[in-house]
């Protein structure tokens, strides 16, 4: 494994996540895509700390914190989606346009 290969995989993952975020209309699917982008960044952090000769444990600790924060974020986001679904009976972002000017 080399650094460019790992960075290429991370970039591909980020691109897939961005495409999903922009393309999917369901809030849940968008959240999944967002998680993909977050994973890509985590990979970047681990790879860069490992392959550039720094202490690899530093990057791993940071990424673990990322994972914890992501889990919390997912919990909050999903509970919001449930609340939105209860009031609007829909989680399609095309229809959730109340803030339109």
């Amino acid at each position, binding site marked *: 494994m080399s650094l460019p290969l790992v960075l290429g995989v991370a970039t591909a993952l980020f691109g897939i996540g*961005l495409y999903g*975020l*922009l393309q999917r209309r369901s809030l849940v699917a968008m959240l999944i895509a967002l998680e993909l982008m977050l994973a890509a960044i985590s990979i970047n952090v681990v790879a860069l700390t490992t392959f550039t000769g720094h202490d690899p444990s530093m990057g791993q600790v940071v990424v673990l914190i990322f994972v914890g924060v992501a889990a919390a974020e997912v919990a909050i986001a999903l509970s919001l989606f449930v609340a939105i679904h209860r009031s609007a009976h829909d989680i399609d972002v*095309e229809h959730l*346009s*109340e*803030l339109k*000017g």
Partner: protein
Amino acid sequence: MSGPVTAAVVAQAAPLAACAVILLWLRRRPGTAAALAILALTVALGAAVYMVAAVAVPNTSLLATSVWLPVSDGPGLAFGVLLDSLSSTMALVVAAVTLAVMVYSLGYMADDPGFARYYGFLALFAWAMLGLVLASNLLQTLVFWELVGLASFLLIGFWFERPGPAAAARKAFIMTRVGDVGFLLGVLLLIRAAGNATIPDLIAAAAPGGAFTPGFTTTVAALLLMGVIGKSAQGPLFTWLPDAMEGPTPVSALLHSATMVAAGVYLVARMHGLFAAAPDVMRFLLWLSLITALAAATMAMVANDIKRVLAYSSISQLAYMLMGLAAGSVAAGFFHLVTHAGFKALLFMAAGMFIHHAHSNDMREIAGHTPGRQRAGAIGLVAGSLALAGVIPFSGYFSKEAVLAALGEHAGTAVLALAYAGAGLTAYYSFRMVFLTLRGGPAQAPEHRAGAGGHAPEHGRSELAMAAPVLVLAALTLVLGWLGAWFASRLSPGAEEHGALAIGAGPLTALALAAAGIALAWLEYGRRGAARIGFVERMPALRDFFADNWYLDRLYAATVVRAAKALARAARWHDQTVLDGAGDGFASATVGGGRLLAHLQSGYVQMYVSVAVAVMAALAAWLLGGGKLA
């Protein structure tokens, strides 16, 4: 403070206190308000009687001042009291007439919703006029002069919810203001030249050999005269007075006799030393008031509204007072002011009784409501008209005779002849009024008569409140005339003495003219089967000309009013288009800008995300490309 000065302060403080208390706390207690106002005026009347006894009877004078506005390098502006025969007598007249009007109003204004407010305003009027009369300083005079104007504005527009009185009040205020500009300028010039404006100092400075140059005195006298013309309804500025008849009738009685219009005449008497030092101004005043006297008399000859007849007669009689003053006799002018205050208040109150009864100002309609049953009113109207016409034992005869004698001595034959003609016209129009009102015309209305009879018992007390002052004043018309010699000895010392009953060529001419006027009025209106149409009314063009204030109002409407309205329209255009337009434009631009920008808020999350990503990408590209600002 000596006794008379204390009395002067009390006379001013009592009505002021009554006014403040009524307007602040007694608006819902009409009975208490009226009682308080009458009590205050009784106190003021007592103080005025004391002042007359202490100052005018021994014929002394007193000046008490205290510095109101200290000036670092000058004497400062002193406010105070100037007491002499003139001011104390005038204070007595003011207090007495106001008290009579207040008692009369108990009946006339009974059950009016604004009863308490009315008495508050009357007290304000009394305070303002007493302050004006007793002022020691011309600036103080000016302050009270404006207060008199304010009080008459409030009272003329007392029924402000109706358009007529509101317009009349505005007209009175604005027209007198035109003259007041001159008065204000005159006072300012005097203060600049003399350092203060204490009246005796000013008169001393204006006298020959004093500090003022003749040119300066003439300028100042002309400016002060502008105020007098506005206030006393003379010359071109008189048309507000007939319109002021929209106010309650007792207000007219007050306004026309002892306050408001008398203020101008009083000012000329007060400042007579200064005016006498400006002979050109005095000659102008003489001719102006002569023309006014004749013009107003012709207008009175065709008016059908009893109050308008009386208003024109006021203008005409005020002109006689000013003629007397302009001819150099303070005593004659002021004597006529005092007798006129008595009989004009009487005439208005008597007319008010008929108006109260008939609910109309039109003399022909009043005639249809059996005016003869109001005995006090009929007595008052006849006695007042006899005094106004100048019939011998009544007060108007003596004072008018004094004025005519002063004119004969100092003013020349032409003026005297025209003034005699005016006296004849006065007799004609006053008895035209009497006959038109009291001799029931062909338009008898029996059903009204029955209704009127039924009303009488329940209005018994208010009828009494109205009848009492009328009868007292009617008796006074027989008394006041004998005071001429007393006034002459105090106000024009050194002038040759005329006996009260000096029957010579002059008085005989005047009496003959008065008799001719009355006879003509009887022939046309009074006798059985009379046509009840005057000789002027047979000429429609002339009648319209006279009835329409000699077309002066139309002239003003076509010139001054039109110009002022055009100016007002321009100002409104500027205000609405330029000033408001700028504000409105700014506001609507903000709103419109907001509307435009709102379209950016599509409400689609993914749109926002793509914009954010695009911006991030652009930022990244820019940073990679060197990160410099282009």
